């Protein structure tokens, strides 16, 4: 028995389980598929439940109140209570609504929300679908959710949801570009679309192989893309654009409750609304997962080699712990943003995407290129790093100034004589 390596425990278990089925190959294939998809279906709705609780508690604490504390200790069972309430609520479908599209909308939104999870690398060889074109598949399926939002808005045949649907499409389509372009810089630098290669590129393998523990930890962290100029700018653009993709706080135009009641979700109640709600959070997790994979070094975190094993790649703390920690950290930042920032207006939203994020993302690609060819002083990007940051900061400033226009100046107020 090879030494138990905590990092690969689950992988070894699945291989051990599959070894029993060698005699009938068809069943083995089926079981392999099940073993890789069922954990996704189980884990991510769990994360969704935890996040709803986190969100309500976090927002409450930001607003100096306590948040749910009646259902279970510290309100832990609040997601269960919400779930049951959603299931028991009557599912009202408006009479004039288009029955088929109204029913299909949450389904069409659920499908991409879960399929894009299969591309994310949770651990060294724990990736549900080791597809060579991982990132492109992610963006392709991500764009299908735009269609689902339209179907919801259009089929409920009410003014508010139509307005919400139209706003949602315009927003999601125009924010897909900065999202993809900021992802492109990372693909350009790693040279491959495969998510496992992207994560591997962010780990300095010779440091990890080295004997002393400090170097091993550093090896896992130093290589992250977010510490490079194009990585840092790309991460910010990616994060802001992902906020818009999943209609979260500063960009939650479609369900702007103060203007058009609940946008495309107005006519949904009961279980369908719960599906919408869940797929919004699951796609939030998926996009956070991708941004960790692209910029924050996926599953690599401060980790040392377990003392008893000689395999150089073994890790004491399993990789997916770091992966989920980073995803939840990004989720907390989203909750924090939701507690602070007001909503953008539609035309500012469009202007922000096309006139600010897009040029910045294109600029980022140039900076990436320059960084790649900038001379390095035996391995350390001495020239590329500072100039990269300088160029990105300058472009951030001047594009910002170009867009601001004269009106949003700080005003000075005089007093009556």
């Amino acid at each position, binding site marked *: 028995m090879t030494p138990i390596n905590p990092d690969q425990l689950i992988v070894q278990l699945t291989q051990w389980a599959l070894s029993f089925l060698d005699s009938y190959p068809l069943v083995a294939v089926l079981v392999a598929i099940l073993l890789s998809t069922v954990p996704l279906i189980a884990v991510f709705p769990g994360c969704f439940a935890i996040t709803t609780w986190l969100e309500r508690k976090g927002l409450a604490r*930001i*607003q*100096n109140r306590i948040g749910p504390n009646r259902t279970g200790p510290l309100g832990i069972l609040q997601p269960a209570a919400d779930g049951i309430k959603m299931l028991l609520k009557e599912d009202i479908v408006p009479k004039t609504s288009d029955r088929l599209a109204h029913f299909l909308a949450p389904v069409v939104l659920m499908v991409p929300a879960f399929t894009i999870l299969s591309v994310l690398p949770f651990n060294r060889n724990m990736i549900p679908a080791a597809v060579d074109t991982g990132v492109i598949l992610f963006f392709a399926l991500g764009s299908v959710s735009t269609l689902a939002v339209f179907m919801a808005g259009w089929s409920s045949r009410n003014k508010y949801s139509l307005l919400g649907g139209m706003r949602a499409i315009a927003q999601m389509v125009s924010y897909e570009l900065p999202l993809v372009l900021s992802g492109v810089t990372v693909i350009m630098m790693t040279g491959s679309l495969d998510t496992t290669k992207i994560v591997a590129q962010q780990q300095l393998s010779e440091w990890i192989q080295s004997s002393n523990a400090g170097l091993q930890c550093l090896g896992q962290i130093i290589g992250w893309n977010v510490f490079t100029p194009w990585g840092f700018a790309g991460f910010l653009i990616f994060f802001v654009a992902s906020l818009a993709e999943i209609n979260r706080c500063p960009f939650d135009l479609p369900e702007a409750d103060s203007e058009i*009641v609940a946008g495309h979700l107005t006519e949904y109640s009961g279980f369908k609304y719960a599906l919408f709600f869940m797929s919004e959070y699951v796609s939030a997790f998926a996009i956070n997962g991708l941004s960790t994979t692209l910029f924050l070094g996926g599953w690599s975190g401060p980790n040392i080699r377990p003392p008893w094993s000689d395999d150089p790649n073994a890790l004491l703390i399993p990789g997916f712990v770091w992966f989920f920690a980073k995803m939840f950290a990004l989720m907390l930042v989203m909750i924090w943003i939701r*507690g*602070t920032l*007001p*909503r953008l207006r539609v035309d500012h939203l469009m202007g922000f995407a096309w006139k600010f994020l897009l040029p910045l993302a294109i600029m980022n690609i140039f900076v990436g290129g320059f960084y790649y060819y900038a001379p390095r002083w035996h391995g350390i990007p001495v020239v590329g790093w500072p100039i990269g940051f300088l160029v990105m900061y300058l472009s951030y400033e001047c594009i910002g100034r170009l867009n601001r226009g004269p009106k949003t100046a700080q005003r000075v107020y005089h007093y*009556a004589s």
Partner: protein
Amino acid sequence: MSTETIAPREYQIYSGDDLRTNVLEISMGPQHPSTHGVFRMDVSLDGETVVKLKPVFGYLHRNHEKIAETTSYLGSMPYTDRLDYFCSMTNNWAYALAVEKMAGLAVPERAEYIRVIMAELTRLQNHASLVGFLTNDLGASGTPLLYAIREREHILDLFEWASGARMMCNYMRFGGVRNDLPSGWLAQCKKVVDDFPAFMDEFETLLTGNEIILSRCQNVGVLPRDLAINASITGPCLRASGVDYDLRKVDKYGIYDRFDFKVPLGSVGDCYDRFMIRLLEMRESVKILKQALATIPEGPVNDSKARNFRPKPAEAYGRIEGPKGELGFYLVSDGTPKPHRYHVRPPSFINLTVLEDMCLGQKIADAVIVLGSIDIVLGEVDR
């Protein structure tokens, strides 16, 4: 597309052989999360821009003025709390001022000081919660609103301690106040007033520099100076358009001439100015409160002739600078204990008349903010 190109009343609907988009009629009805209370706006939209906006109200009409004609003068004092249920102290004071002007009653010195303190405390909590509601309309999921409400609680506890009730104080009487301040009240009030600037700094860092609020509030719902004057707008909305008119300086009612405070004026008259004027007025109110709390004298508080109060036949119009604008009471007495005519001049009702002119040509999201920035309370609008 600035508002000048669309004249206030005349609006074009895209027609002719152009891409005829049908105008979308939306009624942001009484049950709408962003109308403050039961208030409906019939908005017709061309795409996102507002083409026609008709405010519809009267859902909260309680026949206050007719009832006042059949109750005694003292009897309608508790009803004035229900006019603008955010600032019951200033409503009481306006009514008491009108009755005193009509019957010529004198008000003892300490009562005047108590009235100024209560009025300025109401202004603080009203402006704080208004700014909170405005950011709530902007979509900030209630965080600034809850900070404002946390501070408002301290002030409401003070009201409850003095008058017995948090919002429906019924505390002012003709010729003074109902009962003197309990012992220890002034010390607690001093503490609350001293803590307030810390909250205001936190509020301002959270809001005024915020780029999203800058881009959403500036140049939105611009109220030109002359339109404001012609439509007899009063209060912070008027001062935001740059008109120097504050009743505390103009009328010098009560003892406001003893305190030195300044009146902030806006320049453009858009949502952002109305929003900033209220923040600056809060700072001025804190200044007044500090001076009033320092120099409040001892002495009697009221001469209780409230019960069978039979004024000589006369008519009077008393007005004060309420947090929402000029709140006036017009009384005609005919010698009987019941007023012959009792009319309230509600500031938010009159400020509402210019809502359409401010919203034409703006987006639907701006119409909501412009409504929020006018600061209306439906109890006062419908009476």
